[in-house]
């Protein structure tokens, strides 16, 4: 890979030029803050967000019933991020990778809720045949690459996926999601460095939901403006409201245009909020109920989209219909996940290696 930097010989670019390049995407975004969605498009976003919300609620319920085990990290509250960003991507062409809070990203990429739920319940019909669980799910067909349980690991892996897009010249972009907590992992900056050095087609997405387990951002991060953390690598940053699906979508377009032009990575910070505990078992003592209630009542991305649709004159009927459809889709997924059989015991030994030696 050729180095992009013209200053390999040590010449300095003027500071002002660098600064404005780093800010330019934010300015483009500010000039056109919200995506001009048609009614149909907004309905589609609403539907996808609602699917994630209802799916996750049901997953929480199945967990309570003992049907889901281990860790189960719900995406409730963060729906606008995955839906807004991934609506600008093409499954099967652009790759997506994230951490363990991955159900929403899969649903937003059009992966069948039945096989996701069946993975959560550890069944043979699950997307990983019951051998991955909530944190380890993949769909190579969609180019959804997981589903990773080690905080931050998905960031260099994502840079590797971006490397393969560039190497194959397939026009694809990788979107690599990670949390505000993961943003403090050293390997993230190793990946930033190489992604910028080699102009890899990748959008780094920090989903800043305010907390890493029980650690509030300001207790764990010296620089709490995560979008600025690419500056040292000359990666332009974007600071985005992650609770408005149309703002998220508009920002995604700006970032993707930059990346697809061959100009290298972009770092987006999406401000969002997790309503539920970190996983199912959570002490819930590190934040106040009022704080959570305020986010739910005044900043909910789904309620906001609903209100906007109503204001646009979309009929109550239509909304109710969507609601009903999603309920039955989720009920169907839950039934499937509850009633499909567990993996056969010989599955214990399959897929350790691909080949036989």
């Amino acid at each position, binding site marked *: 890979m050729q180095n992009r930097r013209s200053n390999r010989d040590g010449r300095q670019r003027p500071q002002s030029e660098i600064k404005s390049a780093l800010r330019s995407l934010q300015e483009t975004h500010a000039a056109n803050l919200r995506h001009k969605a048609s009614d149909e498009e907004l309905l589609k976003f609403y539907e996808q967000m609602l699917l994630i919300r209802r799916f996750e609620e049901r997953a929480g319920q199945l967990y309570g019933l003992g049907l889901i085990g281990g860790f189960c990290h719900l995406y409730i509250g963060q729906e606008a991020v995955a839906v807004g960003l991934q609506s600008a991507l093409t499954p099967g062409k652009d790759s997506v990778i994230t951490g363990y809070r991955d159900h929403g990203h899969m649903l937003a990429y059009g992966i069948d809720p039945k096989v996701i739920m069946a993975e959560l319940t550890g069944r043979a019909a699950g997307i990983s045949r019951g*051998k991955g669980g909530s944190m380890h799910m993949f769909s190579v067909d969609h180019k959804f690459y997981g589903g990773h349980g080690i905080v931050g690991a998905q960031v260099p892996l994502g840079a590797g996926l971006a490397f393969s897009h560039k190497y194959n010249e397939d026009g694809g972009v990788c979107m690599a999601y990670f949390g505000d907590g993961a943003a403090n992992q050293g390997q993230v900056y190793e990946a930033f460095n190489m992604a910028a050095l080699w102009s890899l087609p990748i959008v780094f997405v920090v989903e800043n939901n305010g907390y890493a387990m029980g650690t509030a951002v300001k207790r764990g991060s010296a620089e709490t403006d995560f979008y600025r953390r690419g500056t040292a690598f000359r990666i332009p940053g974007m600071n985005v409201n992650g609770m408005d699906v149309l703002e998220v979508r508009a920002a995604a377009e700006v970032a993707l245009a930059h990346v697809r032009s061959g100009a290298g990575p972009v770092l987006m910070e999406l401000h969002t909020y997790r309503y539920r505990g970190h996983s199912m078992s959570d002490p819930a003592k590190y934040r106040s109920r009022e704080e959570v209630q305020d986010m739910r009542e005044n900043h909910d991305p789904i309620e906001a989209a609903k209100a906007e649709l109503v204001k646009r004159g979309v009929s109550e009927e239509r909304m109710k219909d969507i609601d009903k459809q999603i309920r039955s889709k989720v009920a169907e997924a839950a039934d499937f996940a509850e009633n499909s059989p567990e993996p056969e015991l010989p599955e214990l030994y399959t897929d350790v290696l691909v080949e036989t030696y």
Partner: protein
Amino acid sequence: MGIELRMPALSPTMEEGTLAKWLVKEGDEVKSGDILAEIETDKATMEFEAVDEGIVGKILVAEGTEGVKVGTVIAVIGGDGEVTPSSAPVLTEVQAAPPAIAIERPVAAPRAADPAVPAGTNMKMSTVREALRDAMAEEMRRDGRVFVMGEEVADYQGAYKVTQGLLEEFGPKRVIDTPITEYGFAGIGAGAAMGGLRPVVEFMTFNFAMQAIDHIINSAAKTNYMSGGQMRCPVVFRGPNGAASRVGAQHSQNYGPWYANVPGLVVIAPYDASDAKGLLKAAIRSDDPVVFLENELVYGRSFELPELDDHVLPIGKARIMREGSDVTIVSYSIGVGLALEAADALAAEGIEAEVIDLRTLRPLDKETILASLAKTNRLVVAEEGWPQCSIASEITAICMEDGFDHLDAPVLRVCNEDVPLPYAANLEKAAVIDAARIVVAVKRVCHR
């Protein structure tokens, strides 16, 4: 129609908890997502949310009640008639643990022997270094997805010159110098393999790969299994491993046992040039992640190498380097040279040793070891590395479990001394295995 709300479990092990607080009262209208109650255990608190809408009918367990069993009906929500019945799952009976079932472990198919070298094939002398380079170059010519990345692999021609000439032939797109950032580029290599490429990631030495071991194990080795066979990671991590010379403790360690411990990895540690070439080519073609352990002290040694268009050897097959009937010496990597040296010395004293080069550490070729043990009834393992939890320990265990009836003497391990490797020449020499120590051990098992 009413929906029964049951006491949820906050974790798979929770059996009961405290219903700390009701946030709704009878007659309240709730919708999906509203918090109904707070449940507590000694470890955690959970807000219990409504999943359906309706009017809170009866509250059956008062707030503050302790010891509420998971699954107890705590309230009833009157539905609005629109709720799909199946949307209110009932607690499934917790099934009694099934009796322990003996699962048949799959039996490995007999492993392929090395392909026969056709009569009349020209044998040339080659260093291990050249053999490795040629393996990479041939595979890069054969498959456009193969590329090489690592520190100093391109411009500098490799810190140990193993990648010499590759940049010139394949250009900077396929021969890539990385910054000194092992965790990061191991992750990029693993990610590129998930994305369909065939990366060969060079570590300047495996000592530095400890910073990358998370990606080697968690990202590369476990992915195929965790994805139910859907997502592969055909990456090769290669570089020198084991003690070099006078570089001190941090630069001198054998990681063979570390990686050989991990299901999902293939681990190869060749000794001579022919195996280095044939197995590296096989490693690059493999659909599995491979850790390929070389040895700096062996790079410059010359061996016979058959001049073939495509010299590929089977992974997972040990090689009998020297036949003998009195005792078996099992080794791998640099230890093989020492074992052969010891065998020569022993032959002079009338002891015929069979020397086995494992070549692949995972999957391990038990059959070849046990067949040799059945013949010689005595076995010594020689390993340039620490003794505790070593490959030598593993082979000893295999002999106990599967070869006990054939043993005429205890299996002995000849390993490095159990200390960090010292710098001083005399101490270093004292710490690392040599042929003389192998000879002593062999004589002990032969009662001589």
